[in-house]
């Protein structure tokens, strides 16, 4: 089946060293894809290419079978929620939401649609409010309602939760996902937070330095990372370069890099020897910093009473990811 949204070999060169792509990414109808990457990795550029605010140097953008590469943003029918929302301060909530609704033949249709969309985001009756008077979370929902009102084909979200209070974020995240699923719209959103990407996205696309490292479901990325970058960027990881005694003890060959998750290291009677230097208590478990004899630090996740600072311990790996040494 052909994907609903397709970035086909899309490429954008900013300067000899800064570029995005070439990218190949297909999104089936109704799927939510998270674009995850560190700042400067080109996430927002991908979003802006799809929205039409940037033009690619090469490649095709296809939405619902239509090649939109040459189409101006106004005719792409992509709803976009901006990082700072970009609500029009000279219009009230109703005016903002109605902005994208074309003059309808029957009067009142626009007003009805505005009320409908506002109710959808839980802001029924907010039409007359000034956008400046709303809280950050409410502004975010108005921005979402405004983007959804013209019934776009694709929804694009640029760091949709970054401007919210941390305590509000987790709840908003779940509400946002429920809402998008209810509307059933194909969605691409940008984030630099792994937790957000895992929670909100059906699939996660990891972007690094303008290239797609891996696209997959959350557990796939975590359990079977395609590259050293994905392994270290997604989830906590101990990285052990090849060549040392520790690496050999963990079973590495020369020219290999090992990645061990903290929860895949166990305190045991034999294995890599070391000393517990720090213990960080998190409630149900604790993180232990173990210093090996060669001075490497390894992080271990274990029960809260598994060891004490100063203890001599041995570490045994229960699962090691191996990657070839990167060419420097």
């Amino acid at each position: 089946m052909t994907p609903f949204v397709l970035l086909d070999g899309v490429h954008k060169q900013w300067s000899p060293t800064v570029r995005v792509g070439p990218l190949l990414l297909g999104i089936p109808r109704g799927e939510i894809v998270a674009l995850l990457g560190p700042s400067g990795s080109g996430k927002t550029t991908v979003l802006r290419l799809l929205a039409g605010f940037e033009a690619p140097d090469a490649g095709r953008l296809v939405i619902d079978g239509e090649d939109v590469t040459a189409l101006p943003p106004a005719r792409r029918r992509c709803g976009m929620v901006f990082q700072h929302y970009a609500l029009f301060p000279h219009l009230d909530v109703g005016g903002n939401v109605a902005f994208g609704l074309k003059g309808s033949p029957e009067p009142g249709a626009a007003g009805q649609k505005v009320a409908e969309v506002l109710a959808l985001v839980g802001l029924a009756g907010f039409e007359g409010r000034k956008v400046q008077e709303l809280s950050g979370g409410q502004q975010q929902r108005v921005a979402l309602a405004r983007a959804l009102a013209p019934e776009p084909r694709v929804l694009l979200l640029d760091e949709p939760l970054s401007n919210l209070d941390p305590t509000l974020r987790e709840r908003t995240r779940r509400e946002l996902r429920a809402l998008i699923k209810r509307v059933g719209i194909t969605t691409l959103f940008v984030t630099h937070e792994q937790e957000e990407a895992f929670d909100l996205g059906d699939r996660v696309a990891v972007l690094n330095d303008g290239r797609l490292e891996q696209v997959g479901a959350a557990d796939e990325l975590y359990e079977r990372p395609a590259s050293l970058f994905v392994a270290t960027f997604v989830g906590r990881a101990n990285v052990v370069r090849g060549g040392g005694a520790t690496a050999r003890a963990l079973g590495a060959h020369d020219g290999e890099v090992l990645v061990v998750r903290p929860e895949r290291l166990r305190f045991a009677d034999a294995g890599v020897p070391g000393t517990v230097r720090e213990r960080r208590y998190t409630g149900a478990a604790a993180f232990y910093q173990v210093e090996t004899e060669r001075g490497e630090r390894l992080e271990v996740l274990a029960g809260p009473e598994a060891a004490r600072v100063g203890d001599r311990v041995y570490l045994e790996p229960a699962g090691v990811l191996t990657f070839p040494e990167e060419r420097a």
Partner: protein
Amino acid sequence: MSARLARPAFTLLLAWLVLYPVAIVVADSVRGDAVATFVSRPGEWGALWASLWISLASVALAAAIGVPLAFLFEWLEFPGRKALGSLIALPAVLPPFVGVLAFLFLYGESGFVARAVQAVFGLRGPPWRLQGAGAILLVHAYSMYVYFYLLTRAGLAKLDASMLEAAHALGAGRWETLRRVTLPLLRPSLAGAALLVFMTALGSFSAPYVFGGGFRVMTTQIVATKLNGELPLAMVETVALALVAALGLALLRRTEGDELLAALGKGAAPPRRPIRRAPIRALAATAGWLFTVLLLLPHLTLALVSLVPYSSWTTEALPPVLSFVNYQRLFGEPERLRPLVNSLWMAAASTLGAVALALAAGALARGQRAPRAPRAPRALHAPSPRDRWRGPIETLIALPWALPGTVFAIALTTTFSVHAPLALRWVLVGTVFLLPLAYLVRNLPITGRAVLAGYRQLDPALAEAAASLGAGRWTTFRRVTLPLLRPALAAGGSLAFVAALGDFVTSIVLYTYDNRPISIEIMSSLRLNELGVAAAFGVILMLVSALVLGFGARR
């Protein structure tokens, strides 16, 4: 003086300077039969109507030139954009009367353009006369579009690019976005510029005075009436003009809207779009350069005419002899040097006074409370003395701006022609002090606005930090507040100095022989047909203005 009395006393001082003279004119004007005379003469109504429509037309013309230019220079990238963008503000360094002079030499019936047309087509007489409403509007459009240009550019620079992208994403094309998003967001800037142009045009005196001919606006009408000796009628006219100004101010303030508009935007302004197609890029650059030359022509004309010796240029298209003889006379003859010295000392003194008053106003209305020993907490939301006096002080400081210069000239000459110390009136008419006092009052809004804005940007924690380090109130002011206000003081002070230096409208009403300023000397040189000397004075004014403004804009 105890701190408790400082604010009321200062407010009274401001009221005496700003409000009292106007109140006296209003009170005097309703006495006697001058009002009846005013109402019965159709010429008066004609002048009032002319003032109004000329001002409105000036707003429209200035916007038509300034707004597109601002978009061109802020949104598009083309060769020479930067250099042209700063040159385009050049009309600002021409004091009003000097600008009129330059226009006279350039586009007047015996100006360069007229002579060139005459020569090319072999006409016997001058091809046109630069007179009437059209001439006034030409000068206004040239000198006032700068307000629209600068304010619109500033507004565009603050515009959040994501607002425009949001509109595009919602299906709005380029024109629809301009109409539904960009222009509404620019409304405060546009309304501010419209207000500035309206007020400036309403108070404009030089252009109607020189080019008006039989066409009278209220400012020239007032001066003519006063010269006729009909002072009561002049007062009624003054009040009528002030009323129109107040009306315009009230109307435009309503459309200005709240300043919250820009508050939501957090993103950066849209990047400049390079013009890609080579022919169009060349066209834009050429048009830009041509336009700049057009803007610079008055300055160049002035410089050229200043090099023409007396009566050496008659019918030729270009002056046959050029020399520095006018400048030599200007600096060599003490009687000619006098006006220059007069203008400089009066501008300096009035600027110092206006800056000092503005600083006092800032400290009393906006300054930080010097942290003292804690005292019993006041009831919640009870206004402090600072809050209570802030409104009156800031209003009084800004008031002279809302009134044309002629109004203040008439008001001051009325108030200070009577010896009544108990009514706080002394005879200053005929002394050299009245004119600098008028400059000072007129410049209060300029320095006040800059200093108050500077105060608003000060971090309240700084005064507290200084206090916690052991600095007293004066030390804090001298070592923390004043250094931080320096840019605001330089900006406000330089603008005030230039305005006073080039003033014509108040000078013509209030000057005496002993303190005649440059603009008056230019006028008398013009009467004696000493065009070169007049132009040389104009060039000096222009250079000093540019120098001072450049100093004030330095960061």
